[in-house]
């Protein structure tokens, strides 16, 4: 029942604006593929083209052995879950779930059995006769999922399915979707701007930026081996240190960061270092820094450091490895696993440390 999806050279122009440029990837059968990117990166447009809700300007989509590009939405048999649920507000929960079978002229008995089965799957049997307006956001999205799954689609497409929900519900639903997917094994494509969501749920991540694919890989590959500065900065928190390539190292004043052997001598480069790769534990690292602030985030602390050249550096340190480091201390730190890239043309040295992940 599971089918892979191949997307090849997909391009979409709206008037003179190119929303999606030459996007190519394969969503493996039975896996969850996440399209991850900031808003406006074209990921939803790619998903809508797979569903047939938008027509590609160029490129093709193949599902299994079927060429999808020429088929209408109706013929594609994909399940689609919308960010804002898109439940039919004038129908009960049961009628919503049964809609796909009703329009395909399924037998009434078959339909009713299938509706019961799916309501059970999403744990909403007692709500069969309610209207969408009488449900909470999380319940509505579960109805939407049951509705999408009812006609037994070959693939499931989810467009920011948890985007409209609050943090706690989002966590619960994410875990629940993970379990559901393990049970059903239906090929799924999930659009999200939330890197945590992508890392937790997906078997494969396609990182998108300004309509293009930046990198395709497993969550581990995307996190540990980013191939572009965008991926390094967008997936997971990172310190960005701008310098010059000298002898295979990125130099910022007296600081030498290794890992730039692949870059041209003398080029402007940016080194990305994750906050948890800034080690203060040993106390005898290569880089000297002054502690500006220590903030406790529970089991770990965020240590803000000032480098001799004036750059700031954020470290995430488990509390039991702090060893009494306090504000105003001059210490030495180690920078582990740096990733060096040619500096992006727009020199926006973002140092966004968002989550302690």
């Amino acid at each position: 029942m599971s089918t892979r999806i191949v997307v090849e050279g997909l391009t979409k122009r709206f008037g003179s604006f190119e929303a999606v440029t030459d996007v190519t990837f394969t969503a493996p059968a039975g896996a969850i593929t996440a399209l991850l990117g900031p808003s406006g990166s074209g990921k939803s447009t790619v998903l809508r083209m797979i569903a047939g809700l938008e027509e590609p300007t160029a490129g093709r989509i193949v599902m299994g052995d079927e060429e999808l590009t020429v088929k209408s939405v109706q013929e594609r048999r994909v399940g689609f879950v919308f960010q804002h649920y898109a439940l039919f507000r004038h129908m009960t929960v049961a009628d919503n779930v049964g809609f796909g079978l009703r329009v395909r002229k399924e037998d009434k008995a078959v339909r009713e059995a299938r509706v019961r089965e799916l309501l059970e799957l999403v744990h909403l049997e007692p709500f069969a006769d309610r209207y969408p307006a009488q449900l909470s956001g999380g319940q509505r999205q579960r109805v939407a999922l049951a509705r999408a799954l009812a006609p037994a689609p070959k693939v499931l497409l989810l467009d920011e399915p948890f985007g409209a929900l609050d943090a706690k519900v989002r966590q619960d639903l994410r875990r629940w979707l993970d379990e559901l997917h393990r049970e059903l094994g239906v090929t799924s494509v999930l659009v999200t701007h939330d890197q945590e969501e992508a890392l937790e749920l997906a078997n494969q991540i396609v990182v998108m930026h300004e309509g293009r694919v930046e990198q395709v890989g497993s969550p581990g590959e995307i996190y540990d081996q980013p191939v572009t500065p965008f991926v390094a900065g967008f997936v997971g928190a990172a310190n960005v240190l701008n310098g010059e390539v000298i002898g295979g190292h990125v130099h910022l004043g007296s600081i030498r960061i290794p890992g730039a052997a692949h870059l041209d001598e003398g080029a402007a480069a940016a080194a990305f270092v994750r906050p948890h790769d800034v080690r203060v534990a040993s106390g005898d690292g290569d880089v000297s820094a002054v502690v500006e602030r220590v903030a406790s985030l529970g089991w770990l602390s965020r240590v803000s450091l000032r480098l001799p050249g004036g750059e700031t550096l954020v470290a995430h340190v488990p509390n039991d490895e702090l060893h009494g480091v306090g504000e105003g201390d001059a210490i030495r730190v180690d920078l582990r696993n740096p990733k060096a890239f040619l500096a992006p043309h727009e020199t926006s040295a973002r140092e966004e440390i968002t989550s302690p992940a």
Partner: protein
Amino acid sequence: MSAVATPKVRGRGWLLAACLVWVGVLLLVPLVGIVITALQPGIHVVTQTLSAPDVIHAVELTAVITAVSVVVTALFGVVVAWVLVRQRFWGRSLMNAAVDLPFALSPVAVGLAALVLFGPGGWLAPFFEARGIQIIFALPSMVLVTVFICVPFTIREVVPVLEEIGLDEEDASRTLGASVWQTFFRVTLPNIRWALTYGVALTTARAVGEIGAVLIVSGLLQGKTETATLFIFRAYEERQIPAAYMVALLLAAVSVTLLVVIEFLRHRQERERSRT
């Protein structure tokens, strides 16, 4: 609704009284006047007037014109509203403005425009005359001008609802395997049904009461192209005062009933919207 708090304002009583007098005197007194005048000669005037052939014909004609106008404007109104909201094309804003034209034009002007097109020596007159089709001074032109005048009502009711609902439900329906028609009848239409009903009620009230445009294109042929409003007009001229008032009362009754129905529908729609 009852939970609305009304802060104590000095002079609130006076304000309310002024509003009541305004609404009462301006709107209700004339209505009461019609009822009293119509029934003054005695109850027999009711049966007498309403069984007169002229009156029966006039009321029937108004019913036919109204029915056709309602069906035509509702049908095309939904299509135009859908196109205005869902499609982006060159000339869309022009079309959007053109829809309101009948609100801005005096019905008499609409009647005169119809004369220019279909009247004796009119631009399109030779075409229809050659085929023996009578447009002016006959039912077709009367329906035509009424439809013209009623065009905006359905569209203006349906457009904001379609805009509010957005595209998601229609998209969802299509991904679930519904055809364009199934999507329209099972998803779009149920969502706009109250707006559409409201539009139809307004169209009916307007079509029943129309006189200006119809007066010009009808040719005032008694017993042939005389609608209920035109009957009132003539009966009054001919000093058949009780008959004129009786038919006016009938039209008023239709309009008041519609008003009540409209209020009821609006409440329902508000309740439905507040649920989401």
